[in-house]
């Protein structure tokens, strides 16, 4: 039993990393990875929202969509749940913990269009995981995202000083760095 969870965690973080192998959440991965502290903030916000979103969409799926045979409403309800959730989290965070809001607030609106959140919510249903496994899967994927974005941002900080031709600067160099990082992560394959 414990082995199951370990497999889920290791494979989500390292082997099938959500960004570097599954290509979800590329926009924030490239957009907010210019320095490590913003990357850390984004990662934390994703961990928070992804976990709650997965729990709620799981409940919606199994207690609303399936019993009423309206599985085709999945995309529409999920994205509304996520958009609504992000708003609620923002409001509550502002009231309850202004410090946390200060740290994560700016990243929250960006999360609605982070396809990793919707992607994980749908993957959980496709793989037919139970609630606990879904939560573990969500947290592991969010950690995988955080790991990738932090590693990537520290690489990019180094890249800033590099002497590159003008046309390689910025996104092209970042993408090629991401490619090498992704190659490195392929080395984890076969771990489980």
């Amino acid at each position, binding site marked *: 039993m414990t082995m199951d969870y370990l497999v889920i965690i290791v494979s989500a973080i390292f082997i099938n990393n959500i960004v*570097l*192998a*599954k*290509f*979800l*959440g*590329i*926009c924030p991965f*490239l957009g907010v990875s210019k320095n490590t502290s913003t990357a850390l903030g984004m990662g934390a916000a994703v961990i928070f929202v992804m976990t709650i979103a997965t729990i709620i969409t799981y409940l919606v799926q199994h207690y609303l969509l399936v019993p009423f045979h309206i599985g*085709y*409403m*999945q*995309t*529409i309800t999920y*994205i*509304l749940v996520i*958009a609504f959730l992000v708003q609620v989290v923002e409001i509550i965070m502002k009231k309850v913990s202004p410090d946390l809001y200060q740290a994560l607030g700016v990243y929250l609106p960006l999360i*609605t*269009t*982070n*396809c990793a959140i*919707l*992607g994980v919510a*749908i*993957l959980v249903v*496709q793989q037919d995981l139970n609630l606990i496994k879904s939560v573990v899967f969500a947290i592991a994927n969010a950690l995988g995202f955080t790991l990738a974005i932090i590693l990537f941002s520290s690489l990019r900080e180094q890249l800033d000083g590099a002497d590159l031709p*003008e*046309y*390689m600067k910025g*996104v*092209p*160099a*970042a*993408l*090629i760095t*991401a*490619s*090498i990082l*992704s*190659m490195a992560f*392929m080395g984890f394959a076969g771990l489980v």
Partner: protein
Amino acid sequence: MMSNTSHKENFIKGLVKENPVFVLLLGLCPTLGVTSSAFNGLGMGVATVFVLVMSNLVVSLIKNFIPDKVRIPAFIVIIASFVTMVQLLMEAYTPALHEQLGLFIPLIVVNCIVLGRAEAFASRNTVVSSLVDGLGMGVGFTLALTLLGAIRELLGSLSIFGFRLMEGDGMLVFILAPGAFISLGFLIALMNWLKDRSAGIKR
């Protein structure tokens, strides 16, 4: 009303000057995720064109009825409806492609291009120019995906659109994840280089 020439410009800007992938850097998840072959890239592009055109059309039609505060949720519901329609239609009529693209079809909902065009263009422009804009952006996106898919397929499996050009094994890495990143990186660098060069000539 805009004249015909500006419709033409409006369409063409999405292809090169404001290409959603190479210049605006939007919608990179599907760009990287589904382009292991030219055909997949094309299929994803066409699906996105449909959603983009339809949502631009509807948004520009009803823009005056939507209060500002619920603009974004309203757009998202409209987009999600069209995405689900595409999903159902593809499952019914192109099941093989539907299986290949998998998760990335529902994820068209969060493709920044679609919401971006609804918000930035269709909610402020006439129906016709919104249609043209959606079509231009969509075709630009499709071109980018097909090009990237063709390059990866050529290098990775030595074929194009499934037609085998040479015997032997390609460079496997181009079909895998690292190949997606590196191909797109070099393509964007190439675009930048071409742009710099043409700017240099003009000067």
